[in-house]
């Protein structure tokens, strides 16, 4: 039986980041992957966010054929089914106030997981990790009650004092270790996607750098478009739907809902303009937790990425989280190996550091954001807010349909009419902002309170915002 310092299960972004960090530090690492090449089993429309450029210097070297920079996001608000026509849209480049240069330059870079996962696994291998493909882990070795290696289907065993479980949403290591039998239906999303091939020139002319577009609206749960060099993914359903909410909604199939959205007129026009042809159909589960999971380590084992349930609570972005947690797990493994203590008590520092890290901070206010999107998904409120946005923008800035003064006069009462809906939204955002930024924002809040009082509202100052 071969012995390693560290066995990593799964050569996705989390596993390869763990293996890379450990191998660079001189550890003897085995990286196991069940598929024929890293990236073969992943789906759903991948774009890497600027956080990866901020936190991983080697990401600056990324140069993959499928890459397309996303410097412009578009949110399309559609009218309700069955019409699903454009009603209102919001689009923007990144904020100039972001805290690091890449974040002011772009949002994400779309690229294929087949390319990215292989690139990252190759880095780990070049650093000295042993990569074994087509290797399915079906058991864990145990020594004195702790995880001490893995067993492959077929019986081959590998010993290691510590194992990193980077084996995705349906993690076998989580189950075999007893950390988690399976997710509840309200803790995951079923994401489907259609990959379309499109000529590169069409992509450059029609999409350019508008690499992320989302489709919302009354009865439309947030489907999305992610752009690559030579095609697009249309994926969904999005942020208003966990598996359980979908099942409760009288069994509307996620696959059917996505196909219906693709059939919506604006999407069909876009696909025609792109001369796009469907190339692949994909489906995958994503963990979607509103609080950061805490049962992510035990004696001799740490879970990272999707296996740990780390995708952030609003859009279920998970690749940067996987990379960050993978590297952290490798660092903790090294420390604990040097100290000679791989017990659960010793590995507990993994959770502590993750909670304090940017990955953990993404979960602050997660439950509130989830509630906000559930509220915005309500067909009545969704329609009211959309029409409010139309009245305010069109009447104030764009309309030539009536005398200018009348257009402006039409816009103002709309704000007052919609105050209750706006307060509902503010009540969710403000406590969350206070939790993160606290003192710095209390001054701004005082101004808002004054404004609300002047408008005769006052709801801003009530409830949790005071806490």
């Amino acid at each position, binding site marked *: 039986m071969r012995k390693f310092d560290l066995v990593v299960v799964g050569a996705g972004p989390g596993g390869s980041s763990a293996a890379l960090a450990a191998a660079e530090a001189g550890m003897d690492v085995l990286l196991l992957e069940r598929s024929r090449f890293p990236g073969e089993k992943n789906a759903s429309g991948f774009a890497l966010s600027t956080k990866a450029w901020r936190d991983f210097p080697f990401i600056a070297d990324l140069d993959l054929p499928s890459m397309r920079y996303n410097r412009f996001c578009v949110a399309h608000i559609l009218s309700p089914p069955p019409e699903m026509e454009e009603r209102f849209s919001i689009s923007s480049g990144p904020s100039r106030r972001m805290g690091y240069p890449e974040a002011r330059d772009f949002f994400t870079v779309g690229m294929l997981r087949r390319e990215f996962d292989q690139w990252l696994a190759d880095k780990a291998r070049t650093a000295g990790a042993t990569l074994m493909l087509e290797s*399915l882990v079906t058991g864990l070795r145990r020594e004195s009650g702790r995880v001490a290696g893995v067993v492959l289907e077929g019986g081959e065993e590998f010993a290691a004092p510590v194992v990193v479980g980077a084996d995705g949403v349906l993690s076998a290591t989580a189950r075999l270790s007893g950390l988690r039998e399976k997710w509840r239906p309200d803790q995951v999303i079923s994401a489907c996607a*259609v990959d379309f091939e499109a000529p590169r020139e069409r992509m450059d002319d029609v999409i350019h750098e508008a690499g992320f577009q989302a489709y919302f609206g009354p009865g439309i749960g947030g489907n999305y478009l992610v752009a690559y060099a030579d095609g697009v993914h249309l994926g969904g359903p999005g942020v208003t739907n966990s598996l359980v909410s979908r099942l409760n909604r009288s069994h509307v199939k996620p696959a059917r809902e996505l196909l219906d959205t693709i*059939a919506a007129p604006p999407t069909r026009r876009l696909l025609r303009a792109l001369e796009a042809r469907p190339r692949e*159909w994909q489906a995958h589960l994503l963990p979607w937790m509103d609080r950061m999971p805490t049962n992510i380590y035990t004696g001799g084992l740490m879970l990272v990425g999707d296996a740990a349930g780390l995708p952030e609570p609003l859009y279920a972005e998970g690749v940067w989280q996987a990379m960050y947690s993978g590297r952290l797990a490798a660092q903790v493994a090294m420390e604990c190996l040097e100290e000679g203590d791989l017990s659960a008590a010793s590995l507990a520092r993994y959770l502590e550091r993750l909670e304090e890290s940017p990955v953990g901070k993404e979960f602050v206010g997660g439950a509130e954001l989830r509630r906000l999107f559930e509220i915005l998904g309500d067909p009545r409120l969704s329609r009211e807010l959309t029409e409010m946005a139309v009245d305010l923008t069109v009447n104030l800035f764009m309309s030539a349909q009536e005398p200018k003064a009348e257009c402006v006069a039409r816009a103002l009462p709309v704000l007052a009419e919609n105050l209750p809906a706006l307060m509902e939204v503010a009540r969710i955002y403000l406590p969350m902002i206070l939790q993160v930024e606290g003192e710095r924002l209390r001054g701004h809040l005082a101004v808002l309170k004054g404004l609300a009082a002047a408008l005769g509202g006052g709801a801003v100052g009530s409830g949790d915002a005071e806490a």
Partner: protein
Amino acid sequence: MVSEKPRSGKDARGGGGSDIDRFALTEVVPSPRDFIFVDAERCTGCGNCVAICPMDLWRMRGGRAELAEGYRENCMECGSCYIACEAGAVDFTYPPGGTGVSYRYA
């Protein structure tokens, strides 16, 4: 009174989702063994698996869920049936290494 909304240009027919053949758009190396297991005794007939499967591989028969015989040739290993089953009647493991669904453009 506007009776019918005028729409400019080519109308919205054609293209889009209706002509997407999910089965033709997936590549699967069929697993040599089973990897989804159904305990018919525990099935309550809730239909969650039928509702959630992205490949329509489940049917209701006699009030109980039934997995398509050839599922190994089409299953995308998403595990939705396993998570969605309210009775714990569906068990899911992965197919052997090197087999199962293969995404080239994910």
